[in-house]
């Protein structure tokens, strides 16, 4: 039901003049979940605002995540490991970043769905019952409906099955679990209209399909083997294998040639080869979340988990079971993608839970090993009399437990500190310390959006860089050209061209796009560094990446020395483009000093002809311009 509702919705308030078919461009899980909670609570006469539901959804789901983590680690090792893992994931900064109240993001519920699917999968592998595999498929469906990261999931489960096959651990339990998960899961996932036929047509999902086939073959081979003697079997096996391999390669080639199988999509390429995105798709590279993970951020987000993780791997290897193989694979793969390849900061989210589980296993195993060696004081005295040769055992154990406790305490302190420093302040309200140590609040974004909401015509079209799209939609309730759902590259590129062109050209583009207001971000007065001038090079790159934007060349915006400067030395193209004029108009009045880039700006008397200042916020962070109508003839 939810799916068809989403399909019908067409949003004409975003991506003007194209509009956006909501169902086809988003994962509905998050919204369906919050709407369901809202309706159920209100049906029970718990009159809670839908906004509060949204705000507290992420914390609610992160508490579910904690519970699921406990069960998952309990299945993998022991209840003790489960408890430690649950405690760790409850405070790990890498996950808190997406689960603070007010973070209304797909990832907020997706991590829960992912762990739930893993738990169900482990249960299914352990028991080999249809019940658990169906539950796993349902959990997988929920995951698909909520986040694009489900691709990771549909690759790691087949990989687990494949590994089990290679290590000779394939059994009827695995067969039942995987076959039913794949069939039910794929059919369900195709009900999400954003996913559509991708599970049977794109290369990301081919691995799962291949392993499904292998499963059937493996099971069949096992069956045949049980009815034939060894010689007969070997002959048959060789003949069949070579035929199938040849046929398979041929079919794949034909399908790819006919275009039935989608070529490898950009995001996937960038997953395998980090330089792909930077070279080919500027919009993917421009998102800071898609930047390579800095090594320090591992320590920042995970702290002691970074070095407890290999210990956990050791304990998993030392007692190898079907489910331990899964967690080893998950751990190794996610650290590979998040770290070694240095792909995306966003993958930290996938990494954090497995880090917690493996560290939970490690800490719990270490502690239970050493705790046994500590006896209570009274018995110890007796022991000393009896067993002089074990004199140091208890002391060393005590020391080790103490060190471990210190580590755990440090972890807690670090997590609390990171959460309060880095992840608790809303990014929409900025704050700074004044000269006298008092707190200054920069509430400029909301000021501007609220001004738009109440003092512009209801059908006004607002042009801004796509970062602010969702905020303008939600807070200003105005039609926008591009937003954070970056589904149409060409359109974003057109906005980039308007920002990067000279005023005349920009006016043409703005008339063409029917823009009424232009919103730019300027941090030069307050020292807010992520403003539009610092994002400007991305606008140039994205603007120049399509056919219509061939007149925009990145090197025009650099000085001959190859620098990006806004002072007098800056390139004339830059000093005369639209956004420069917007950002610095009247900011150019004396002293005209930019505190972000610490320079005196280059073009101080910029006069805008086709735009007029409509509103500027208290600290100048947001500036809104009105596009003037065409002048009357002869006027």
């Amino acid at each position: 039901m939810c799916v068809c509702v989403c399909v019908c919705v067409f949003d004409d308030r975003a991506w003007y003049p194209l509009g956006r078919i909501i169902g086809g461009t988003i994962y509905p899980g998050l919204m369906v979940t919050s709407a369901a909670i809202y309706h159920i609570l209100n049906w029970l006469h718990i009159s809670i605002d839908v906004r509060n539901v949204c705000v507290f959804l992420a914390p609610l789901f992160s508490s579910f995540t904690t519970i699921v983590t406990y069960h998952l680690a309990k299945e993998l090792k022991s209840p003790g490991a489960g408890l430690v893992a649950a405690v760790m994931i409850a405070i790990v900064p890498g996950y808190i970043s997406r689960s603070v109240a007010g973070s209304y993001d797909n990832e907020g519920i997706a991590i829960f769905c992912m762990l739930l699917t893993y738990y169900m999968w482990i249960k299914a592998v352990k028991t080999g019952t249809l019940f658990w595999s169906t539950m796993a498929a349902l959990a997988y469906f929920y995951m698909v409906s909520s986040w694009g990261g489900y691709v990771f999931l549909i690759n790691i489960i087949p990989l687990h099955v494949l590994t089990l096959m290679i290590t000779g651990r394939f059994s009827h339990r695995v067969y039942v679990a995987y076959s039913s998960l794949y069939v039910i899961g794929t059919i369900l996932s195709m009900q999400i209209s954003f996913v559509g036929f991708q599970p049977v047509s794109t290369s990301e999902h081919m691995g799962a399909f291949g392993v499904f086939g292998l499963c059937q073959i493996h099971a069949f081979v096992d069956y045949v083997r049980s009815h034939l003697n060894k010689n007969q079997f070997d002959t048959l096996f060789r003949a069949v294998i070579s035929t199938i391999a040849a046929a398979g390669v041929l079919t794949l080639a034909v399908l790819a040639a006919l275009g039935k199988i989608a070529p490898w999509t950009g995001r996937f390429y960038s997953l395998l080869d980090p330089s792909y995105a930077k070279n080919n798709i500027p919009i993917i590279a421009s998102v800071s979340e898609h930047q390579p993970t800095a090594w320090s951020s591992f320590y920042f987000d995970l702290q002691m988990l970074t070095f407890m993780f290999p210990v956990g791997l050791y304990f998993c290897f030392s007692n190898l079971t079907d489910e331990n193989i899964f967690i080893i694979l998950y751990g190794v793969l996610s650290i590979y993608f998040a770290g070694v390849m240095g792909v995306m900061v966003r993958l930290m989210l996938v990494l954090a839970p497995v880090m917690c589980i493996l560290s939970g296993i490690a800490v719990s195993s270490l502690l239970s090993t050493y705790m046994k060696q500590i006896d209570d004081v009274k018995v110890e005295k007796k022991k000393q009399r009896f067993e002089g040769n074990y004199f140091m055992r208890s002391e060393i154990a005590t020391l080790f437990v103490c060190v471990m406790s210190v580590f755990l305490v440090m972890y807690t302190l670090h997590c609390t500190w990171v959460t309060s420093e880095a992840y608790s302040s809303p990014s929409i309200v900025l704050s700074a310390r004044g000269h006298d140590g008092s707190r200054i609040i920069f509430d400029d974004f909301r000021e501007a959006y609220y001004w738009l909401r109440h003092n512009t015509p209801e059908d006004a079209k607002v042009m801004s860089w796509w970062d602010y799209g969702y905020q303008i939609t939600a807070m200003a309730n105005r039609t926008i050209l591009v937003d954070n759902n970056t589904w149409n590259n060409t359109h974003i590129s057109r906005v980039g061209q308007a920002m990067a062109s000279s005023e005349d050209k920009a006016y043409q583009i703005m008339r063409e796009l029917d823009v009424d207001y232009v919103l730019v971000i300027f941090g030069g007065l307050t020292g807010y560094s992520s403003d539009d001038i610092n994002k400007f090079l991305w606008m140039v790159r994205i603007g120049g990446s399509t056919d219509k934007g061939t007149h925009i060349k990145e090197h025009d915006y650099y000085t001959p020395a190859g620098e990006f400067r806004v002072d007098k030395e800056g390139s004339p193209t830059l000093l005369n483009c639209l956004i420069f004029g917007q950002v610095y108009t009247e900011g150019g009045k004396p002293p005209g000093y930019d505190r972000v880039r610490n320079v005196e700006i280059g073009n101080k008397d910029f006069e805008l002809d086709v735009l007029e200042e409509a509103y500027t916020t208290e600290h100048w962070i947001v500036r809104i311009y009105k596009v003037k109508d065409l002048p009357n003839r002869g006027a």
Partner: protein
Amino acid sequence: MRGCRYLLLCVLVGVLALGWCQGELNKDLVNKKIERKVDITSQVVKIATKITLENSGAAPVKSFLVALTPEEKEKLSSIIVQSGGSVLKIRETKVDEQPDVAFYKVDLREPLNPSKTVNVDVEYILTHILEPYPASIQQGEKQLVKYSGNHYVLSPYPTTTQTTTVAVPSPNIESYSRLKPTAHTDTSITYGPYESVAAFSEDAMSIHYENNSPFLTVTRLERMIEVSHWGNIAVEETIDVLHNGASLKGPFSRYDYQREHNSYSSIKSFKTIIPASAKDVYYRDEIGNISTSHMRIQDDAVELDLRPRFPLFGGWKTHYKIGYNVPSYEYLYSSGDEYLLKLRIIDHVFDDMTIDELLLTIILPEGVRNIKLETPYPVERLADTLHYTYLDTVGRPVVSLTKKNMVEAHIQDLSLHYRFPSLLMLQEPLLVVLAFFLLFLMVILYVRLDLTLSKDEATESKMRVSSHCEQVHTHHEKRARLYEKLEEEIHKLKSSKDVAQSQTTTKKIQASIKDETQFINDLVGKIRADSTDYADKVAELQKVDKALRECVVQQLTNVEKLVSGKMSKQQYMDTDNPLHRKKEEALERIKSLLSAI
């Protein structure tokens, strides 16, 4: 003829229908003296007229008429007529001779006898009558407005002498109409005195002057009051504000706004006054808390300094919410099951405020009956509705009323009488109790019900074994403690050398050890029924324990011998050392066995 009769009938019916409110011009009344003060310093126009009425006729007069022009009638917000400090009864009426003029009939307290005089004060407030002229100005310009009125006081009675004083906010006056005699000072313009003015005299007055006072209008005020009999009244006001002065023409320049301070008519902030007992005050809008506000608590009120997110220029509007809680004992009075709610219909929003439309909703507790509303001035009461919130079953009754065009004079109390059986207070707690009771009951039932189709023998026997093993552990622990005691005795004996004393205690301890051992032996039998594996282990435990016991007993006898001198020190050492080793081995063995069970 027939048509004529028909017409007559119509007129008769019409006269009858209007009859009760039909005013009549009393030709006997004369305005001896009129002093009028017109205050146009703010956005509302306050007109106060002091009239000395004289009865020049022969019969006593019970009432008189106050007249307003149609324009004034349209913009009229409130009108009060007082005489000698008490408010007179007033009602709207019509006069056939002057169909265009609006009349109010005022009843005097005592009939006015012939050739007597009486002083009456008529005060009324007009809103939206000042017209910005020009209608739009640039950011740095000053706001000019135009006031159009009447040089004479409109009265249905002839006037002997009258003067009008117009208070203006500043000496900057563009132009004003002159009807001699007039006088102009910095803050006022005086018209008159005019002598012997006929009834219904009109002469257009127009003043074009600078007025930079805030032209702020609440276009819609939604005030919601939620009454709880648990001691709290929650008030929330949703307010739409519009700056309806001269609208802003051209661009807004933040640079000029910050550096030049020349935005005369813009509004940066305003003061709202709420009751002194208000707690938990919040100021927010659709996108969250508005961080720019200050609260000052004073003796008689709480003063809020509200700053909208952005300064308001002409034509700009904003929208916000203010909410707070007040204790109900200040506003809710009761006698038995009858309650009286007495609180303000509107509260102060800002000085010289005008409210275009008010919607007041009062949410009463569930189960309230016989609601009776009394207001100090006429309002339009809407149909009662129901409101559902936490723990509601049948819904809370909601009283709503609406009124247009209100000003500060309307800040007055309403009274709401209703009946609320106090027993209903228990409904909500009982509901919660019942819900939890049902929940626990269901859990109890679920835990106790066995819904499996077939019994799983394996798990059950496993559970039995584990419970038995646990018992083994507890018994063994007791036994171990007894061993410790025994050893302590041996130690004591070494120093005290009192064999008899020691023997009595050791005997007792040995007996208890035997008891514990017997308990475990019994358990072995029980365990064997489910698992021979565990039973064997426990049996082995018993065997090792026996060996341990023998060692300890041997040690005891050795010590006894040593103490009583039957054994030499050297002999004792020789026998005790192997025993010690044996004991140690036994202990180690027991430990490993216990961890396996």
